[in-house]
């Protein structure tokens, strides 16, 4: 396996009035496990149902109802742990986190507090070719999602929908190793990418399948290094937690705003309050969540309705053996195997299906050329139309067939673009289309010579000029191409035009 060498990015520096500042970021990412049923009940996790339609008696915390854990969810947590090269704890314990809230029917959330299923791991966050941040993951634990309270449907009432209640989440807790707003966004992007590769989470941020709580503090240059040496959080600034972020763009903007806000307070001689904040995308600001200010005392204790979760190493091994190739490995392999650039490899690996598509196209062909076509033409077109690779109207086999025609000299690059359009909008077999529509490029020197001779004969004045100034021969090439319907091989035309005009190479 190849490991790409990389340098650590420099932390983002904010120039303040009293000198430079740095930002320190840690994240808790809540990823919905891609299960059909909930973590402790048999109700569906389907998105978009009517209020309270995906609610079992267990989810509604009816008296006497009991939780029974979903094996698939445990497996996905283990997969995620293995995907983050983390330690899998064969014994973990579910605790109750006790608090009252209308969308928390049990009056407690079942979570893993002291003994999570996954211990320390890491995420390599790519910032640029050759530049990446290694962010340590402290733990991953499983927990239940809460329901949803809706506050704007009635002037006096809040409405409670328990469809999300009990949906399985993995909470992935990072160490405070992220050092800038862009890194924060990229961390989430990379985490999402890995989870999607694993199939553990669909990563749909609009539907709330992936949300991040972002802890932000600021410090002076050098403080963070001291923290890393000593592990003493005291040398870092007071942190604020920005809750429930569901877009990379907002995360980046929120961190940036929050860092500047804290710096302004500190430079003003003030003190940052440790608090929970919400990001308002409309205003581009974070604001304090007053209702959460009350000091919490969650009274964690092991859930007596559940036994400790003990899993077998053999099961973990089997899960590990079934893991797909993960983005970092895939990227390194594409570079080595197909000779693509790190940048291109990164683009191709953003999504497992896209990388698979690319590899099908590149197989047995020129990898760089395949990458150009897949990235520039295909991805470009997909993006423009807001389509996923899975929705592509053009298959890898079609694109590959087109590249074969190009490589064989059957079509020119220009014709290839036309063919791409046809394949995109009409479909069909590339070779058959080329044959049926007479798109094959003309390489028969005799036919081209005839066309060249004709154009020169028809334009004697221009021919004289071009003989004197060879750079004008391009006009003849254009005319010949036009006369042959674009099917003439451009290199051949160029050579024959020069020969016809008597220009030396």
């Amino acid at each position, binding site marked *: 396996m190849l490991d790409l060498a990389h340098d650590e990015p420099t932390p983002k520096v904010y120039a303040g009035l009293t000198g430079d500042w740095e930002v320190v970021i840690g994240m808790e990412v809540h990823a919905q496990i891609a299960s059909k049923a909930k973590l402790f009940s048999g109700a569906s996790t389907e998105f978009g149902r009517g209020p309270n339609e995906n609610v079992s008696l267990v989810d509604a915390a009816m*008296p006497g*109802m009991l939780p029974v854990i979903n094996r698939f969810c445990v497996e996905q947590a283990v997969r995620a742990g293995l995907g983050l090269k983390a330690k899998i704890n064969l014994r973990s314990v579910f605790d109750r986190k006790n608090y009252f809230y209308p969308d928390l029917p049990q009056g407690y959330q079942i979570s893993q507090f002291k003994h999570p299923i996954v211990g320390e791991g890491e995420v390599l966050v790519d910032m640029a070719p050759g530049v990446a941040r290694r962010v340590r993951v402290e733990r991953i634990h499983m927990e239940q999602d809460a329901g949803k309270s809706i506050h704007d449907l009635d002037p006096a009432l809040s409405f409670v929908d328990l469809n999300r209640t009990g949906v399985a989440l993995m909470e992935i807790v990072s160490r405070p190793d992220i050092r800038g707003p862009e890194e924060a966004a990229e961390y989430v992007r990379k985490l999402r990418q890995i989870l999607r590769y694993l199939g553990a989470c669909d990563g749909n941020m609009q539907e709330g399948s992936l949300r991040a709580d972002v802890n932000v503090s600021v410090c002076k240059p050098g403080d963070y290094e001291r923290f890393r040496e000593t592990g003493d959080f005291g040398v870092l600034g007071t942190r604020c937690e920005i809750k429930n972020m569901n877009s990379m763009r907002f995360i980046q903007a929120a961190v940036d705003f929050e860092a500047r806000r804290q710096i302004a307070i500190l430079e003003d001689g003030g003190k940052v309050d440790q608090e929970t904040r919400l990001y308002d995308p409309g205003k581009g600001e974070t604001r304090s969540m007053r209702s959460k200010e009350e000091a919490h005392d969650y*009274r964690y204790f092991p859930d007596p309705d559940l036994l400790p979760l003990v899993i077998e190493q053999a099961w973990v091994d089997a899960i590990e053996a079934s893991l797909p190739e993960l983005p970092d490995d895939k990227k390194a392999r594409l570079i080595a195997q197909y000779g693509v650039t790190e940048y291109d490899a990164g683009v191709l690996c953003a999504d497992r299906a896209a990388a698979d598509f690319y590899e099908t196209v590149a197989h047995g062909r020129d990898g760089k050329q395949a990458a150009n076509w897949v990235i520039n033409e295909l991805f470009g077109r997909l993006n423009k139309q807001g389509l996923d690779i899975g929705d592509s109207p053009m298959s890898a086999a079609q694109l590959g067939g087109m590249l074969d025609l190009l490589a064989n000299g059957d079509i020119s690059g220009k014709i290839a673009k036309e063919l791409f359009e046809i394949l995109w909008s009409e479909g069909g077999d590339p070779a058959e289309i080329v044959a049926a529509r007479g798109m094959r490029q003309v390489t028969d020197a005799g036919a081209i010579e005839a066309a060249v001779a004709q154009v020169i004969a028809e334009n004697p004045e221009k021919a004289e000029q071009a003989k004197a100034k060879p750079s004008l021969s391009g006009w003849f090439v254009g005319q010949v191409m036009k006369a042959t319907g674009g099917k003439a091989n451009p290199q051949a035309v160029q050579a024959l035009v020069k020969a016809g005009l008597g220009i030396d190479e």
Partner: protein
Amino acid sequence: MTALNALTIAEARDGLRRGDFSAREITDACITAIDAADALNAFVTKTPEKALAMADAADARLKAGDAPAMCGVPVGIKDLFCTEGVRAQAASDILRGFKPPYESTVTRRLWDDGAVMLGKLNMDEFAMGSSNETSAYGPVASPWRRRGDNRPLTPGGSSGGSAAAVSADLCLAATGTDTGGSIRQPAAFTGIVGLKPTYGRCSRWGVVAFASSLDQAGPMTKTVRDAAIMLQAIAGEDAKDSTSAPIPVPDFEAALTGDVRGRRIGVPKEYRLDGMPAEIEALWAKGRAMLADAGAEIVDISLPHTKYALPAYYIIAPAEASSNLARYDGVRYGLRAELQPGDDMTDLYERSRAEGFGAEVKRRVMIGAYVLSAGYYDAYYLRAQKVRTLIRRDFEQAFDAGVDAILTPATPSAAFALGEVGGDDPVAMYLNDVFTVTVNLAGLPAISVPAGMNEAGLPLGLQLIGQPWGEAALLNDACALENAAGARPRPGAWW
């Protein structure tokens, strides 16, 4: 012939199969007895129409020759069990009017076997109490009275309604639940048999939770044989309860040979309390003699951490309860307090729970919240769970040393009068559980068997504690005790 409502399960089963009487006839007799016993306040919800329909269905099954042992047997159900479409309030105002859209596994199994539901039985609120005085329905009066004394007595708690109903022959048997003695103590107070199975033997699904790691449902019956028959019906693994054990259920009734020769019965010295009434001491001695006479070997044993069981219990049970009862919040079911304009969610919670919970429940929920709260968890909850490990270890060591079962008194006294114990000292009432809580902490099976009467004419019970999953052997030990003690004590009907 015995009145039909006074039959045991075994007698009813045999008579029904022979065709001596019908399930409808037994059910009619029970309904009549229940209606005549309102003074006991044992039944809080009566379901006579349902009962008769179920009885007719049972008669049809009997006729068809498809009749499990419980088929056609009318039973009462503790209000803690959720029963589909029939009020289940855990004797609490906070569940006022709650009709579960589901049936608990234990009651489902009874109905599947053809048993007949007579209604729901009174209990201490959320099973928190030892005298049935914390019920939102008011206390149950025991069918027993002291000789020459008309003061109402407690039937014990928390399964007080179940105990009173079985003792007074209002039903053939009843379900109970036992978190710290709530089956065994009222059984002892009313002269019936009460069995708390091994933790995990009976499903907790659909039983309103008090303390999840301690709660177990079990039978409350007139005889040991009936306990075996009823346990057979309700026991077994349930995929809906993560703590129900995947352990096969043996034929409990087949184990009842009454032969206990060679059994080693341990007598723990730590259960000899200072100031224990002489009648309890005498009863215990009598129990030892009865088992020895039957051929068992009586050995002195030590369970050194016994003394700490009660304090550990009164940390662990309230801690779990404080969390289990958080769901009673006035949002999805049960009582919601009248709110004033401007009241918010906190007011809704605090008012609903203040109005809906009784004093004892509030006390325990608050104690539970306290011992789990930041800064106190280690000193109270964590320490109590460590002590619990030690208590279980005591029992394991005794069993490892060759003891088959352990004999103790079931209660530190005979039944007391309503209002006599507790008052402003909650701990005085807690002391009632002193002999029973150890078993819940260790997850063991135990049975209370009527073994004698005191001078005032009140029944007294002995407790036998068995090995984990050893209910069959335990029932047989109890059978020997029952055989020696003679016919079951019956209260004179004053109601």
